[in-house]
């Protein structure tokens, strides 16, 4: 049995009559230590999916099990990095991380908790900003704090909900490298939700496309067989990278695309010059 297992998971919102199904029949198995990226459209239900794994919302149908035990409510075994950082603005960087450490490792001594917090803050290169409040930090730095807080809990699974989508391209690239470095070191199981196919290929072992909603479901998984560490500059010209990218995009624009777009495919757009 896989480490993290979703089988036949569905979720809808709204009351009977005006009810719309967001996710339909989601089945996915993730091995321990595996890095899986779920790529899909905005509004397809990606956040709903990760919230269910996190235990913040319950599926209407189907089961989610982690290490053989069904997921019932949130817990420190699953660290979540939210899209909008979700830091507490009245606490400093250190205090935000310490809050998690203090809760998860309640039986540690104060000194040990302090050291662990310092280490987590240093790991995302925020040592210099440890006493700043989130309001004084840039978006990239805030997201690092969120990553540090999630990692400090030493979770079995790290759930990343579009953690980088609000950042500019350069910050994004830096943080992608940082996430890869941390994953290489800890070999944690990671589920990354993203709308960026390239980001998925760069980081993940396997990419699972999520079709457009309503009633989104998972498409055929694509294994990323590129050797690590992956160099983003070399990757752009790698034929395997292009093939993987083509496979995922073909699904997202084809069978997994928006219903209204499907008929339009017969009038192809003129080919644009590819920019470097």
């Amino acid at each position, binding site marked *: 049995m896989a480490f993290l297992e979703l089988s036949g998971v569905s979720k809808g919102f709204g009351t009977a009559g005006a009810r719309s199904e967001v996710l339909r029949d989601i089945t996915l198995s993730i091995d321990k230590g595996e890095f899986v990226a779920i790529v899909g459209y905005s509004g397809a239900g990606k956040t709903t999916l990760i919230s269910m794994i996190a235990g913040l919302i319950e599926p209407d149908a189907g089961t989610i099990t982690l290490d053989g035990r069904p997921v019932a409510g*949130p817990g420190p075994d699953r660290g979540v990095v*939210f899209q909008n950082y*979700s830091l507490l*603005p*009245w606490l400093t960087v250190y205090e935000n991380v310490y*809050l998690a450490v203090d809760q*998860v490792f309640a039986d540690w001594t104060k000194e040990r908790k302090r050291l662990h917090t310092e280490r987590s803050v240093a790991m995302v290169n925020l040592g210099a900003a440890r006493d700043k409040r989130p309001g004084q930090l840039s978006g990239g730095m805030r997201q690092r704090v969120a990553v540090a807080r999630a990692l400090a809990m030493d979770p079995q699974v790290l759930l990343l909900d579009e953690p980088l989508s609000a950042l500019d391209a350069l910050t994004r690239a830096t943080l992608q490298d940082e996430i890869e470095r941390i994953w290489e070191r800890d070999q944690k199981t990671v589920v990354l939700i993203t709308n960026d196919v390239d980001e998925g290929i760069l980081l993940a072992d396997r990419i699972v496309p999520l079709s457009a909603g309503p009633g989104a479901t998972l498409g055929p998984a694509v294994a990323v067989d590129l050797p690590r560490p992956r160099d983003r500059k070399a990757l752009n010209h790698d034929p395997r990278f292009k093939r993987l990218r083509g496979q995922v995009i073909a699904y997202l624009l084809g069978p997994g695309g928006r219903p209204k777009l499907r008929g339009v495919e017969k009038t192809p757009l003129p080919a644009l010059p590819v920019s470097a």
Partner: protein
Amino acid sequence: MKPLGRKLGLVLLPLVGASCVLFAWMVSSRTWSKNLPSPGKTWEVSKPYVVEPLAKRGELDQGILRFAWYSLVLVAKGYSIALLVGTPLGFVLGLSPLFTRCFDPIIQVLRPVSPLAWLPLGLVLFENSKPAALFTIALCAMWPTVLNTAMGVRAIPQDYLNVARVLNLSGRKRLFKILIPATLPYMFTGFRLSLGIAWLVIVAVEMLTGTPGIGGFLWQEYNSLIYEHIILCILTIGVIGFALDLLMGAVERRFKVA
């Protein structure tokens, strides 16, 4: 405007407004209301009370700030009761929709009742003017704190609550690390409005109970036909109320977190 001009405007423009009121007062006292003392006369008669603001010449004849101090002490007591009762009540209202459905209608009915109406009930309940005064101040001043705190709790972003759930925070930590800090800005808005009401209520309460204080003094001087002192009291009440609001405004801003 140049910086110097702006600074001058900051001082001059409020003076323009004050002068207009002073002028209207002067004209009124000369023309249609012969009983209204003129500004000059008011100053003359009030001078001993202002120049020696803390003097105590007798029970009924004290400096204006000494009277104001008695009032402030009474307000502080009533206001403290209002906060101690109102803040937890607001929290429970904000947290529990069931509680809100039970108590919100009755709160909306009690809220607009004037202090003049509560005071007699207080006198009936406590048979003594001091606790009746406290009862009235607390009851009237409580509502902004209750309603703003409740609104603040309801406005806590889901993100913060999700953090509490993901971290499995205990009830106590959830309250002190998330709920209270997230609600503080709203709470302090409530505190500021409550203080304004408490100060508004004090005058009416003192008038009716004859408690020594700025409102009691005002009423006593009306009965003694010393109308100059009525105006002195009105101005003092206004200035102190303004100062209290500025003070609470500063505290409120301090607790606003970006």
